[in-house]
């Protein structure tokens, strides 16, 4: 089989895997963003219970491997709770929590980097604490941590490959299956590599553009 025959045969399956990879990443990142913002706000709260929950959550996520988290949810939790869960759901939960933990720290740093004067100005106008957070602090915090946030998105997209271990037929898993049938490891891994690279590189380019677009720095200002 020539390279091009291999390519023609593999690509539909790899693209199918890529779609699943992107679906898993998208679902996970949406939840991870929500978890990350909530956990960051809880972590900055003066309430010791909320603060403790956030700190504990971040510690658990950061101090254990994603692979173990995935196994724990897919095998451990389902056994303990006596429920059934498909690999996509388990993978999405593991990735959401994992990325949520890291994003929590990224957002916390971003929120803390916003000048206290912003909160004071907003509160002095009568804005409530929630209105201040939502309309004044978060829009600036997101801008500050945009590069780190996109970095975490890229990591999480790549981390979907770990969900392969519980049998989800995402891109990496598809590559393995094709190799098992064709024994063409070198070429197939290059194809897998190129597909990951194309998607993630496109995202980094888009992020650079977005960064410039939303930047608040004006050269002529102070």
């Amino acid at each position, binding site marked *: 089989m020539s390279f091009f025959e291999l390519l023609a045969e593999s690509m539909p399956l790899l693209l199918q895997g890529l779609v699943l990879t992107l679906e898993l990443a998208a679902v996970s990142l949406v939840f991870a963003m929500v978890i990350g913002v909530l956990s960051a706000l809880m972590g900055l709260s003066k309430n010791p219970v909320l603060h403790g929950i956030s700190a504990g959550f971040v510690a658990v996520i950061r101090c254990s491997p994603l692979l173990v988290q995935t196994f724990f949810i897919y095998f451990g939790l389902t056994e303990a709770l006596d429920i059934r869960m498909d690999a996509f759901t388990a993978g999405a939960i593991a990735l959401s929590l994992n990325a949520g933990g890291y994003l929590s720290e990224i957002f916390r740093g971003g929120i803390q980097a916003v*000048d206290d*004067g*912003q909160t*004071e*100005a*907003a*509160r*002095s*106008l*009568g*804005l*409530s604490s929630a*209105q201040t957070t939502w*309309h*004044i602090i978060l*829009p*600036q915090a997101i*801008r500050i941590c945009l590069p780190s946030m996109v970095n975490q998105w890229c990591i999480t997209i790549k981390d979907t490959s770990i969900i392969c271990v519980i049998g989800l037929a995402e891109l990496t898993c598809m590559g393995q299956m094709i190799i098992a049938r064709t024994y063409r490891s070198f070429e197939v891994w290059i194809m897998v590599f190129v597909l990951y690279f194309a998607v993630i590189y496109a995202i980094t380019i888009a992020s650079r553009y977005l960064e410039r677009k939303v930047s*608040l*720095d*004006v050269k*002529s*200002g*102070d």
Partner: protein
Amino acid sequence: MSKVEIRGLKKRFGNNEVLKGIDCNIEAGQVVCVIGPSGSGKSTFLRCINCLEQPTEGTIYVDGNLMDANASNIDELREDVGMVFQHFNLFPHLSVIDNVTIAPLLRKKMEKDEAEKVARELLESVGMLEKADAMPNSLSGGQKQRVAIARALAMRPSLMLFDEPTSALDPEMVGEVLDVMRRLAEGGMTMVVVTHEMGFARQVSDRVLFIDGGVIAEEGTPDQVFGNPQNERTQNFLKMVLQA
């Protein structure tokens, strides 16, 4: 009833007692300038009035309402007390006009058209209408501060607090901000101004408070405080700043 009634105000930060017992009334329509050495507690005094700093002891009433940072009505009470900061604190992610409309939109549930109409009138009154769509970071310090004044006025406050509004400005921009404040005072606004601009304090204020060491060391009309200060610390302070 006075516009602002302050009784036994004390404020501690840790072991550092910044305000050591301040009693003072401010009448509606009065312009009160607060002067004193740095670190004397002037800014803390001002920030207690709208509860950006919660008093450790004592009470502050504005229009008969107790100001308490932990009370559920504090947001409503703050709507009526505008504040202008040394470092402007404009919202850098919002255009000039959005800076002015955000509080009326969120708090007064004003229609967008009406809020913008009001904002344009205010921006015109501070000479910033042509910059309505500019972003704050493209403005000079004096322009930023004029926008900040318009933003505070958009809530139609009956009391305005100014915390060293010209201290962060280049000298040539001080005048444009003081002009806006002077016109505001002439319009009858009740104002409390922490300032190092002795000329402004002397010309515009009805009353001058000299705060030193966390207490009001001397107060009176500008002519009394500047022309014939009784307290030795006031005399020394004025000698120092007027020499400079």
